C-alpha cells in the first residue's frame, strides 16, 4: 500500500484531533458529572475555580499530577504500573472506527471523518471492549488488597455476563445494515434510524454499555459503599486519574457507538453532521449521569441473573425475530 504525504498528514491530524477532543471532553465530563449530580441533589456543585468552576478539571489534573505515586507493599510492580494504561488505551482505540461526521472534501481529497474505516469495525469494538477488562482485573489483582481483588473479580464476572448480550444486541444491526463497517451502518440509517426497527436491541445495548463502562446500576467493580473504591482502591495520583479518565472516555466512546448503531450516527436534519454526532454523544453521557443520580446499585446475584437469564435470551429472540422479518420482507 502506498500513501502520499497529504494522506498521512491528514491521518495524523485526525488522530491528534480525536485524542485532544476526547481527552478534553473526558475531563469536562467529570466536571459535568459533578455539576449535574449537584443539581439533582439541590446543590450548586464545583463553582470556585474559574468562571462557573470551568477550570475545575485543570485544578483536578494539577492535584492528581502532584500527588504521591504510591505502591502498596507486596504489589506486583509491573502489572500495578501497567494496569491503568491497559484500562484507558483500549477505550481510546475504539474511537478510531467511529465515524463522527460526513466525509469532507479538502485539497481535492475526500476526507472521512473517521480515523480508520475498517471493514470489521464493529468486531474491533467488541475485541477492544473485552480487552479493556484486563486493566481492571490486573490492577485489582496486582494491588495486593482484598477490596481491590474483590472489585476485579466482580469486573471479570460482569464483563463475561454483559459482553455476550451486548454482542447479541448488535447482531440485528449488522443484519439490517449488512455490514460490519461502521460507515456502512451509519449510511444504512440515512432514511430511518435503527432504533425504530430495533427498540429492544437498543434497550439491551444501553443496559449492556452501562455495565460495560461500570456506571451506577452496575458499578459493582467499584461499589464505593461496599469495596472502598473497588479495583482502584490502592491507586493514587495520576494512575488513579488514568482509571478515572478511562471510565469517562469509555462513556464517550460507548455513547458514540450507541449513536452510530441506533441513532443514525451523524445523520440529522438542519445542523451539520459533526454537531449532530456530538449532540447524540453528549445526550448519552447526560443519560448516564442522570442514571447515576437516580438509580441504586444492583446486588451481585441480581446482576448475574439479569445478564444471563433475561438480557441474553431476549437478545437471542430478537435476532430470530429480526431474521424472520428480513426473510419475509425479502
Amino acid at each position, binding site marked *: 500500500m502506498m500513501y502520499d504525504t497529504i494522506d498521512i498528514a491528514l491521518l495524523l491530524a485526525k488522530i491528534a484531533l480525536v485524542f485532544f477532543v476526547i481527552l478534553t471532553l473526558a475531563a469536562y465530563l467529570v466536571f459535568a458529572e459533578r455539576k*449535574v449530580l*449537584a*443539581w*439533582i*441533589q*439541590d*446543590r*450548586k456543585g464545583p463553582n470556585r475555580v474559574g468562571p462557573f468552576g470551568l477550570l475545575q478539571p485543570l485544578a483536578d489534573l494539577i492535584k492528581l499530577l502532584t500527588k504521591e505515586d504510591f505502591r502498596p507493599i507486596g504489589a506486583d510492580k509491573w502489572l500495578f504500573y501497567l494496569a491503568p494504561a491497559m484500562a484507558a488505551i483500549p477505550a481510546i482505540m475504539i474511537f478510531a472506527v467511529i465515524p463522527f461526521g460526513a466525509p469532507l472534501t479538502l485539497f481535492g481529497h475526500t476526507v472521512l471523518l473517521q480515523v480508520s474505516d475498517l471493514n470489521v469495525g464493529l468486531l474491533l469494538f467488541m475485541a477492544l471492549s473485552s480487552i479493556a477488562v484486563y486493566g481492571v482485573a490486573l490492577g485489582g489483582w496486582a494491588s495486593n488488597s482484598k477490596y481491590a481483588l474483590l472489585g476485579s473479580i466482580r469486573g471479570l464476572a460482569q464483563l463475561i455476563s454483559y459482553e455476550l448480550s451486548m454482542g447479541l444486541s448488535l447482531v440485528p444491526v449488522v443484519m439490517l445494515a449488512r455490514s460490519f463497517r461502521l460507515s456502512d451502518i451509519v449510511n444504512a440509517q440515512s432514511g430511518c434510524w435503527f432504533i425504530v426497527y430495533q427498540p429492544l436491541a437498543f434497550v439491551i445495548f444501553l443496559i449492556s454499555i452501562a455495565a460495560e463502562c461500570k456506571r451506577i446500576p452496575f458499578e459493582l467493580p467499584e461499589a464505593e459503599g461496599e469495596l472502598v473504591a473497588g479495583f482502584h482502591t490502592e491507586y493514587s495520583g495520576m494512575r488513579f486519574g488514568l482509571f478515572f479518565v478511562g471510565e469517562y472516555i469509555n462513556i464517550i466512546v460507548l455513547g458514540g457507538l450507541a449513536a452510530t448503531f441506533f441513532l443514525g450516527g451523524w445523520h440529522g436534519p438542519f445542523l451539520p453532521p459533526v454537531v449532530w454526532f456530538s449532540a447524540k454523544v453528549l445526550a448519552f453521557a447526560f443519560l448516564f449521569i*442522570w*442514571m447515576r*443520580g*437516580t*438509580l441504586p446499585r444492583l446486588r451481585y446475584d441480581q446482576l448475574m441473573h439479569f445478564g444471563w437469564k433475561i438480557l441474553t435470551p431476549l437478545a437471542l429472540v430478537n435476532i430470530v425475530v429480526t431474521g424472520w422479518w428480513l426473510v419475509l420482507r425479502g
Partner: protein
Amino acid sequence: MKILSDIAALLTGMWITWKHMFRRPVTIQYPEEKRQPYPRYRARIVLTRDPDGGERCVACQLCSAACPVDCISMQPTEDTDGRRSAEWFRINFARCIFCGLCAEACPTLAIQMTPDFEICTRDIMDLVYEKEDLLIDGCGKSSHYNFYRHAGIGVTQPRGNGAEELPPVDVRGLLP
C-alpha cells in the same frame, strides 16, 4: 405485569431527579454569605464578668475536670479579700470539641459558649487561647448573676447581707 410496574418505578425515580435538577440549590455560599447561628450555638468559649465588672471565674477546676479532651487548664490564686480567681487560664482550641460540658459544669456561669465559629488559623499554636484572649467585658448570656452575692463569703458585701442569706450566727452566744 411486574416488569411494567418495575419500569414505571424506574421512570418515577428518573422524573423526580429531573425535577430536582431545576430546583433552586439550597447551598449557602459560605465565605460570601454567612448564616447567623442561633444564640445558643456552641462555638468559641469565653470567660465572662459579673455585672459589677469582676471576673466570674473562681478557678474551681470543675470545667477542667468536666472536659472530655482535657483542653482546659488553669492556676488558681486568691486575693487578700478572699476573692478567688485564675492566675492563668488556658484553653487549647486545637483540642476543644465544643461539647459544652465545661459551660454546664461552671458553678459561677463564668465559662460560656458563643456562636462565633470562625477561629481557623494557619498556625496551630494560635489556637491556644490565654486568659487575656478569653476574658470579655460583659456578662454573656446571664446579665444579672453575681456569684459572690449568693456565696455567703464577705467579698462583695459584709456577711449576712447577701440575697436569701441570714445574718451569721454568733457561735459564742448562748441564745437559741
